[in-house]
């Protein structure tokens, strides 16, 4: 398929114009930066995490660049769900209606099952969102405690509780900071998630050795950008093997070639995050390249999705 429909894709019951989504936390809350994008290029706007209470965020510095990557520790700065619904949701409602008609995916954060439930209930009631992504994996906010997404049992508890409060598509955003993703992905699937976002930033540290201190104000940070793409790719493939749910890839995609890699490894859609800081219109440039690439290779997203053929053990060269 070519032409304007060439990028149409589906994440479960959700039909989108494009497989290119924003990565949560890299496109803000209000969607105003979508102004830089052409119609039809952005499949959905995934907004920055919102939490029940306001969070001022972590002390600066919050960013440090690394080779082909960015280490961040923002700390989920947001004004809390009540202010978000009063001030920002009206803007997002406008965005999701014609002429822009960009579906918006909310992102819910919390520190307990009750908080997640409160978030999903509140967001669901606004009727402004095409789906709700549950952020189980922010590495920067637990004050040393592990994110929910590092335990299959904790993931199951949160998703099961959230599932009972919404009929909207519910996406579980998982963490790459685990030894094995498979059991966690399966726990999310069994608990009722409609899709998995794989994954989030990798926990990291940059040291200012002269001052003998971490560079970031909060110490650790989450690594994003092209540097982590092979890790995210491996996890998308692992998740693909473990579950039947649609997978939304998130981790270092910066070009149309990267998007095709993720799709081939099993992703139905791909979030563009840190790379978008290069230029706010990057998603439109990737969309144009992607259309050209699909046409040139004579393939389409659906037949490419998950078509990766794993080499057989006999081909590994071992004797």
């Amino acid at each position, binding site marked *: 398929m070519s032409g304007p429909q060439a990028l149409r894709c589906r994440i479960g019951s959700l039909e989108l114009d494009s497989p290119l989504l924003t990565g949560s936390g890299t496109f803000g809350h209000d969607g105003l930066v979508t102004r830089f994008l052409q119609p039809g290029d952005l499949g959905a706007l995934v907004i920055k995490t919102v939490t029940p209470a306001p969070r001022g965020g972590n002390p*600066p510095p919050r*960013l440090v660049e690394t080779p082909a990557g*960015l280490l961040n520790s923002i700390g989920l700065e947001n004004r809390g769900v009540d202010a978000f619904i009063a001030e920002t949701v009206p803007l997002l409602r406008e965005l999701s209606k014609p002429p822009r008609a960009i579906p918006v995916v909310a992102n819910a954060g919390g520190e307990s099952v009750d908080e997640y439930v409160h978030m999903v209930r509140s967001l669901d009631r606004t009727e402004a969102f095409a789906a709700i992504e549950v952020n189980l994996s922010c590495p920067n906010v637990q004050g040393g405690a592990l994110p929910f997404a590092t335990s299959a049992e904790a993931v199951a508890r949160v998703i099961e509780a959230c599932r009972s409060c919404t009929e909207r598509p519910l996406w579980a955003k998982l963490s790459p900071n685990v030894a094995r993703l498979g059991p966690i992905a399966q726990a999310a699937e069994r608990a009722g998630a409609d899709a998995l976002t794989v994954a989030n930033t990798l926990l990291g540290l940059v040291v200012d050795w002269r001052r003998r201190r971490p560079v970031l104000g909060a110490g650790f940070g989450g690594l994003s*950008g092209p540097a982590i793409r092979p890790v995210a790719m491996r996890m998308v493939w692992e998740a693909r093997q473990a579950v039947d749910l649609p997978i939304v890839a998130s981790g270092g995609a910066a070009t149309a070639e990267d998007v095709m890699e993720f799709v081939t490894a099993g992703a139905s859609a791909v979030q563009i995050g*840190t790379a978008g800081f290069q*230029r*706010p219109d990057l998603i439109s440039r990737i969309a144009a390249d992607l259309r050209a690439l699909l046409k040139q290779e004579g393939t389409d997203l659906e037949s490419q999705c998950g078509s990766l053929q794993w080499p057989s053990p006999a081909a590994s060269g071992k004797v």
Partner: protein
Amino acid sequence: MAVLPADARCMDTELLGLQACGPDAWLLDLALPELLPSLAPGRFAMLSPGDGSGPLIPRPFSVYDQPQADRLRFLIQVIGPGTRALSRLSPGSPVVCTAPLGNGFRLVAPDRPVVLLAGGVGSAPFLLYGRQRREQGAGSTALLFGARSADRLYDHASFSDLGMDLLLATEDGSQGFHGNVLQALEQGLDSGRFDPEARFAACGPEGLLHAFSAFARRRGLDAEISLETYMGCGVGVCNGCPVATAEDGCFGAWPYTKTCLEGPVYSVLDLVF
């Protein structure tokens, strides 16, 4: 709360040239694909090489000058991989430029004197400031321009060419006042050379801005600072450029402000700085 400026755009520009203006600094000229309205001083652009030769994240630069509606000039001191990559481009190279961003300096009545303080490459927002003052037919506009040494008083003749009252200072005494610009300011206020009722503004290294902010608050000056905070996106979406706010300032109880949207220019009363 500030939002993305309505006039911001992302442009594929072309490097017209790089002109050395010190041991480690360049004037970088860009040809834009479209016409920009006249820009307020203090606004900035995110720049990165369009050929992928730079690091992942673009860098913020004050607009130094706007020679024509489709030209922008930047003053760039080479301090790391981002600025180094820009300084190594050849004429004709593509440069990604997202601009104009940020708030810029508050307008000043033409008949009110203005005293500007620049430390090194912190002079960058003040050429446009001087130009705007001249176009308004404004009165006295003083610039105290300090640097480590005389060869780092980048392009200082351009400021006097605009008719600004230029006072140079060097830490090593190689040109002008021997000391830093804050000491020069203090002397000028005490001697009556500068009117304490003037509008003051400073840009430069963090240490200078901290000292200037404390001084301005102590003396009750109406003063602004333009920050050179590290940024991720420049357009208000990454929350990576926070600066702590003063509880009794215009940002109220919220602990941080985004430099890229609500700055980079702030009143010294609104920040804990």
